[in-house]
């Protein structure tokens, strides 16, 4: 795969398929171990948990109930307030790629932040289609329409269930 970069860039869905198919078994076994290790190194520093169920409980303690604080007080607030997504989980996902050996903490953070922006973007774009259908509830088909229509989302084609 490493040598055939351009093929995979043209067929991004194959990248994900390749990764999912080959690596997930390995990752499943390894994931719990890595998750705990990452949580120990990153989680302590951030004050966030790798355990999904406990993320909700963490919020009142950390954000003081006001989510805007994370943007306004970015300079003084602890690192955990800057990225909403858990860096440990992002790093685990990144390690699913067999070609990735090491990732700097900055790169993990930027990808987490970019994913946040991506989620916002796709939600807003899908909303357009819901509104066209005179609906106030975003549905799966709105998402499919957005993916089909918008060039930037081309890499998602064929990757969702």
């Amino acid at each position, binding site marked *: 795969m490493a040598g055939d970069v351009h093929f995979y860039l043209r067929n991004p869905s194959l990248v994900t398929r390749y990764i999912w198919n080959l690596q997930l078994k390995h990752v499943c076994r390894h994931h719990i171990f890595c998750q705990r290790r990452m949580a120990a190194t990153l989680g302590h520093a951030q004050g966030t948990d790798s355990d999904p169920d406990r993320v909700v409980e963490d919020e009142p303690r950390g954000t003081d109930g006001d989510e805007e604080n994370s943007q306004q007080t970015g300079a003084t607030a602890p690192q955990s307030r800057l990225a909403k997504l858990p860096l440990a989980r992002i790093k685990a996902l990144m390690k699913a790629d067999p070609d990735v050996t090491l990732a700097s903490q900055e*790169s993990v953070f930027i990808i987490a932040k970019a994913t946040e922006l*991506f989620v916002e973007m796709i939600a807003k774009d899908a909303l357009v289609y819901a509104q066209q259908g005179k609906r106030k509830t975003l549905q799966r088909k709105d998402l499919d329409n957005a993916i089909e229509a918008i060039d930037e989302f081309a890499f998602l084609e064929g990757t969702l269930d």
Partner: protein
Amino acid sequence: MAERPEDLNLPNAVITRIIKEALPDGVNVSKEARRAISQAASVFVLYATSCANNFAMKAKRKTLNAGDVMSAMEEMEFERFMQPLRESLEAFKKGQKGKKEASEQKKKDKEKKSDVEESDKKDEDEEEEEHMDEEPEAENEAEEDEVEN
């Protein structure tokens, strides 16, 4: 699609929060749509990582750095992300710096304490060394005497 363990998805609560903040009030999101967005986000991470890794490999580096990710954003046609990401990165770096200084300060305080303890020990060591220096000299004198004889 191949099996996809739930563990590798990002936490639903956080995804829901991001979506709700992005959309105006009164808009709801179906469970299916939320799940799809969560999956799309995971795919996004994988794709971005793969692209960034290509840039790192081109530069013959084994560690992904922030620059690689920024180049990947451009490659993926998400240039609109680049400016906000740069700003977030600056804030993150400051936070990192603050933390590093805090932990270094802690280290210094610890070293100060152990220095005080060490200096007490050193005085005892010096006394022992003085005694040891005298002994070899005594032996040398003894040998010289024997040679002469």
